[in-house]
């Protein structure tokens, strides 16, 4: 790694840096919530940032794609209707998000640039800076190593922070990232060779922490893409799923939505809202036909999108970042690791 691309800051100076950043941008970081949980929140004070915590259950995609997102205002103009874009032009820094979430946001960036570029997403993404915190140990449900999405990244971040004793290493991944250092340049100095070695060692230790087990996305992808998964497997899996949709809503790489108009001020606000392919009527057609009437068909659809070769080729990556959130949120037993295992073995026992 090029030594010019990394600096360090004393941990005691982080507060000052965060305060300066907060003056020019909305800063979103993990904070403590009511119920004992860690949640991403816009902070008002640097003290609110939690530096040592688990990755929040909610994915930071909601700051690019809010759960309810007003897109267009439609006003009456005499006898005609006049649409106006609702442009969110606020600058925001997603601060100390994890490698898996960086990868997830870059995946979404790719999806929203392809075919019909999504103006709303891109407008927000242009004004968003990704400052990640590398994970120096595996999280309990995570399997990012299987998806090349962590625990450390080589690219994709604007800045990547790594804790090194009493200093924090800051790897610069982009011009946007470098600009964040300019708010308090005296707090940073170039990283030494020793510090960079320390960072490499931490990454190696973290990777080893995931254990010896081989990753299985490759073999699952082969089986699923060559029609070697029995239909009955999906049927049986469907009985272990309660159709809550949590897996898709919480997933950093999922982005399905619905559009709905809300009456407002004599006109309407056209909103985009999160939706899920796991919901029964998601594919219900006006004729009354539903191509995914059976729950097992909806479960199958999800995993085809995430794991099959056709999507891998189209999107350039497997549709999973190994964050483990689907394991935590599943109201049944059909999380990614369990289903990947079932696909490989051709067996499902709940």
């Amino acid at each position: 790694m090029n030594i010019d691309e990394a600096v360090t800051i004393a941990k005691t100076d982080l507060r000052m840096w965060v305060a300066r950043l907060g003056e020019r941008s909305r800063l979103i970081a993990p904070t403590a919530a009511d119920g004992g949980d860690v949640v991403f929140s816009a902070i008002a004070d640097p003290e609110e940032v939690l530096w040592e915590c688990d990755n929040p259950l909610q994915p930071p995609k909601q700051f690019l794609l809010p759960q309810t997102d007003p897109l267009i205002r439609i006003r009456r103009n005499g006898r005609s209707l006049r649409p106006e874009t609702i442009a969110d032009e606020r600058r925001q820094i997603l601060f100390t998000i994890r490698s898996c979430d960086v990868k997830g946001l870059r995946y979404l960036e790719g999806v929203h640039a392809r075919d019909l570029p999504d103006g709303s997403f891109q407008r927000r993404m242009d004004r968003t800076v990704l400052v990640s915190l590398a994970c120096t140990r595996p999280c309990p449900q995570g399997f990012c190593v299987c998806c090349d999405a962590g625990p450390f990244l080589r690219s994709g971040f604007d800045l990547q922070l790594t804790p090194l004793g009493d200093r924090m290493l800051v790897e610069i991944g982009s011009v946007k990232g470098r600009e964040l250092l300019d708010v308090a340049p005296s707090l940073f100095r170039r990283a030494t060779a020793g510090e960079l070695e320390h960072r490499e060692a931490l990454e190696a230790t973290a990777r080893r922490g995931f254990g010896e087990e081989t990753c299985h996305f490759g073999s699952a992808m082969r089986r699923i893409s060559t029609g070697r998964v029995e239909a009955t497997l999906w049927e049986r899996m469907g009985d272990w799923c309660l159709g809550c949709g949590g897996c898709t809503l919480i997933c950093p790489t999922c982005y399905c939505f619905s559009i709905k108009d809300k009456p407002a001020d004599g006109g309407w606000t056209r909103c985009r809202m999160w939706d899920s392919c796991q919901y029964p009527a998601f594919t219900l057609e006006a004729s009354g036909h539903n191509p995914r009437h059976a729950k097992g068909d909806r479960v199958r659809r999800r995993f085809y999108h995430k794991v099959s070769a056709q999507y891998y080729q189209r999107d350039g990556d497997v549709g999973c970042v190994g964050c483990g959130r689907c394991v935590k949120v599943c109201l049944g037993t059909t999380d990614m690791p369990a289903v990947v295992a079932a696909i490989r073995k051709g067996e499902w026992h709940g």
Partner: protein
Amino acid sequence: MMSDARDSVLTVCPFCSCGCGLYLQRADGAINGVMPSEHHPVSFGRLCGRGWAAHEAPLWGRRLDRPMIRRTSRLEPATWEEALSMAARRLHEIGAGGRPIGVVGSGRATNEENFLAARLARGALRTPHVDSCLRAPYQALLAGLDGRRAGGDDVPLDWTNTFGDIARAEVILLVEDDLANTHPRAAFAILQAVRTGARLVTFGLARTQLARLAWIHVPTIPGELPELPAEVRSAYAEASRAAILLAPGEAPAALGRLSAAFAALAAETGHAGRSGSVLLALPVRANARGALEMGVTPALLPGLAALDDAAARRRLGESWHGDVMTAPGLDVDQMIGGVGALVVFAEELPAALVSGTAARAALERLEFLVVLDAFATETSSLAHVVLPIASTLETPGTFTSAEGRVQSLRPATAPVGEARPGWRALLDLAAAIGLPPTFDSLDDVQRAIGRAVPSYATALGAGRGGGSVALTPAQVTALGATPPGTPTTDETTPGAADPSYPLRLVRSGAFEWGDDPLVDLSPTLRRDRASLRKRYPDGLVELSASDAQRLGVRDGWRVKVASPIGAAVLPIAVRHDIEPGLLVVPFGFRDRLEPVLGREVLVAVRVERA
């Protein structure tokens, strides 16, 4: 009024009685979504499909945002003073004229609101007619629980009764309509148990998702006591940890016998009160238990105290600062058509009443109807006075879950327009009628609850985490001593089958969530759970594939269903998960089949192509 300025506000799901926690997400001060809570002691980071859309109805639905009165034929905007004084004046007139007045509370409303609704009835209006929809089946289930304890009448029954216990049980007996749909969090606990080897036995009308995963499924008709297979009895008896879950349908009398039979089984096998073993009744709505415990029932006082319980009357009088009317009253089904005026709190009556859409005609004939709600519903459109209140996302208060957890709701935004918190609106209405408010704040109301219902004093005072309440044998006895609901002749007639009526028609008790405003006004939920009434405007009756084949009919074809009482013609829907010989009326169509069923839950019928 808002708890804090942060973006995530922890509150309780407003749908079923499992009591999952969730964060309401805010952006720029407005609610825009929900997120699960990993540390919540019930939901542990999970939510069902309804919970994930808990923000939608208040955000997207037609909201009541100002008081309205009907001076002529239409509802017109009015001030709170005008609306309250019209309500008070008309209610006085009707009461003075000797015509009964009823108050309907709600399983969708908080404990504080239900307590004040009971106070409005028995304290301000001096009427004993106070009840909520869907209370009767739940009361029947509770009443059957074993009250025989060595510890004494006022010692809480010591079932541990949590979903965690269900997940660790070795044997699970489940009486359900379709638990995966009615109570997903509870169904998840069962999935966890079965996955680790537990044996599940399901009792229900249909081969549901959970029935497919069961060790044994016992087809059971509402209104009939199932036969317990011998191997089930021994497996249950031999298990060190076993769970019984009762998710009510209808037929209160039969449900009482059902829960008594299971409670007796638990007592005989030593599971009653054993740590790790469970006996849990699951009502439909989020705060059905709280509504009942707060006194929204015609035959009990708050705290599930008997009407003639002198100590309870005294406590209540001190808490309400007035006399308490302690006669028994009409239940909610009897009120429809049986009262001159009705005050309805947060309820869409045609969706939840047993009489269904037939209730609309009775509501139209009321001399006076006051509706307090957050949502514009069919019920509110028929009102003479509409008082707008905050939705559960905008009001503080508590819900009591099926497990007995008393949990706090936290408002994430202000009520819309001129809507007031429901507890405030009820105090104002009672004051207008003549019972002055001696409470100034929600804390005052909670203290008053604590004075009237001592078990809630501890639970409400338990701070952020909330507390819990447990039934005592005295309370179970009181529940059992009163008729749970309008008597139906749902005694099954075990006599010789009449060959001219060879099939049986049963009314399903599975609540039709699609008709509830929280679902109907949510864009995502009404798409996925569109009510049957909307999807099939002609109604329908369900029958098995083999019966359909025998009769020569297909999905959507019309049949004539006739019983000794009467007949009806309507389309069929074919089901592949019910037994031959049985026709099922979904809850949403119970009024269409009234000519055939009458007040019964189960009748013998004959069916032919129409």
